Every structure is written in C-alpha cells, then in structure tokens.
C-alpha cells in the first residue's frame, strides 16, 4: 500500500513531539503548508522526484489520505525538511541548531553529500 500524506504528518509529529491531538502546537494546515514549500524546494533540486506524479501535485488538508505525491525515496527528506522548517518558527520550543541539522539532512539526502 502506498504511503499517504497522513503517514508523513504522523512521522513529522513524532519528531516534533507534537502528538497530543487536542493541543497540537502545529496545526495540520501549518504542516501541510510547510510540506508544500518542501515540495517546491525538492522540485528545484530533484525534478525527477515528481516523475511519479507529473504534472506535480501538492498536499491538501482536505485530502490527507492522498498518496504521497513524490517518489518514496523522498519521504524521509521531506519529513526532515518539514521538521526543520517548523523548528525555525520563533517560539519557546524551537531550537535553531536542530532546525539547521534537519534542513541540512534534507539537502544531503536529496543531492548527496555535495556542496551546492
């Protein structure tokens, strides 16, 4: 069975320690918005990721059970990107160093260990 947006959001919430459903720090809308920013970043770096869903689609809150719109090779990098980007938010829980590590992990997994 193909992985869904819902499963990606669940994985993201695990890393963000944001799993209490009646008191989410990050709403689904917010995470989906970041995920879509991640997809645009991914499209810039790895257009081949979207070969499974050309013309490429983005995630929608209204359809959380939709299939993950890019090749599953990029499931992990997108999770790292969303977590890192979410950590950039200026609040008492976020940590800049962790955000930088996660965003770097996204870049490395997408492009290989090469400085671009």
């Amino acid at each position, binding site marked *: 069975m193909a992985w869904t947006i819902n499963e990606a959001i669940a994985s993201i919430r695990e890393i963000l320690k944001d799993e209490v459903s009646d008191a989410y720090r990050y709403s689904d809308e917010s995470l989906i918005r970041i995920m879509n920013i991640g997809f645009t970043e991914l499209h810039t*770096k*790895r257009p*081949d*990721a979207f*070969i*499974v869903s050309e013309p490429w689609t983005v995630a929608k809150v209204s359809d959380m059970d939709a299939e993950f719109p890019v*090749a599953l*090779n990029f499931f992990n990098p997108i999770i790292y990107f969303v977590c890192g980007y979410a950590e950039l938010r200026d609040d008492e829980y976020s940590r800049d160093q962790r955000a930088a590590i996660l965003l770097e992990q996204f870049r490395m*997994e*997408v*492009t*290989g*260990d*090469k400085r*671009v």
Partner: protein
Amino acid sequence: MSNSDYRDGIEDDCNGTLLEILEEIAPKIPGAVTQYIQKELVYSVREYFRLSQSWLEYLRLPALNQNMMPYNVNPVDNSNSKVYAILGLTRNGLPLHRGAVNNVTTEFGARFDGSITKNSSPRAYYCNPPATIYFLSNIPDGVEVDNLIAQVSLVPLTTNLSNMSMPEWIIEQNREGIIATAMSRMYREINKPYTSKTDAEYYGRLSRYYIAQAKVMAQKNYGNGEHQWMFPRATR
C-alpha cells in the same frame, strides 16, 4: 506508406530483456527514482541506436511509379520506430548506386533494346535525410520500379519502457553497450546522490567503444553480410 512484409514473424518482445537490464543497473545507482531510471533507459536505447545505426531492418518497397516519387520510407511499425537512415537500396538483389544530389536530368534506366520498360532500373538514387528516396532520373510515365528492398536503420520512438517494441535479439546483441550508455547518462547528471565524474567518464568511454563496435557489426550485417573482396592468396 510501406508495404514491407519483411518483419512479419519477427519476435518483437524486447521488454523482458529491458527489464533485466533495468534490474541490473538500478542497484548500481543508489538514490535514483526507479521510474526515472526507466525513462533514462529508454533514452539510452534511443541514443545508442541513433549513434550506432545498428538496428537494421529490410523493407520491401511497393512498386514505384512517377506519382509516388519522392518516396518516403516508413517502417512497418511506424508507431514505435522511425527510419533514421537509408543504408542501401537494392533491386532484384542488385545494389543501386547512391548518387550525389544534383538536378541534371539524365535518362532513366538502361536501354538495351531501345526502349524503357518495366525492367529498366533507375541509374542511381539519393536520399533526403532521413528517409526520402529520389531517383536520379524521373520514372517515365507508365513504368513501375518494382522489387525494391531498402536496408534502413531504425530508432525507437516511444518514451515509455513498457511500450518499447523492437526485436529482442537486437537488444540482447547490444546489451552491454546499452547498459554503459545508461550508466554514463545517469552518472553525469548534476547534483544527484549518484553523480560521479569518474564513473561518467569511464562509462562514457565504454559506451562510445560499444557504439563504435556496434556500428561495425551492423555494417557487416551482424556477420551475415557479403564476403569481403580480397586478392587471391597462394594456397601451397
């Protein structure tokens, strides 16, 4: 339009071999999307046969009259392949000369008995790339040029691996070259986890070697061509 029946009965199922090749190269390119490797494999096959001109086919042409000229040669399966070059043209088993393009009007055929008949052959032909045949003299009214067979090199048209249709043996014959071409195409991409200048150079060289070798093999009709002429040698 072509009336060729030369390919009838030829097994066109190359997909099994292409899937084997895919299985062989996919683990060597970590970080690549499988569907993308499939596309690259298709483009590699196209590049390989375009450069090597080693996918050969004999096409029987219909009897040509003056209204059918110039004649555009199409493969039998023109939804999956197209003619890349006309390598030769024969009539009744004898090769026609390929002439230089010119606009000098010459008399059609040879007049052994003082008349131009159905048995007269054009003096020569030339081709407008990729696949249009001109005779170097117009076919006279009422004359048909029949029993023409063109040897052509083909290239696949499809961009989809599962739709690719070509003889299985030609893929098998050129398997290593196709793999080397695909690997070199993949390794030379920029900013991918599998980008590798060294491997791209290595497989690029290998690919060019196989393409050159395939071209020679094709020119010899895969070992089934006519015997090469040579001086008689002493046999003692």
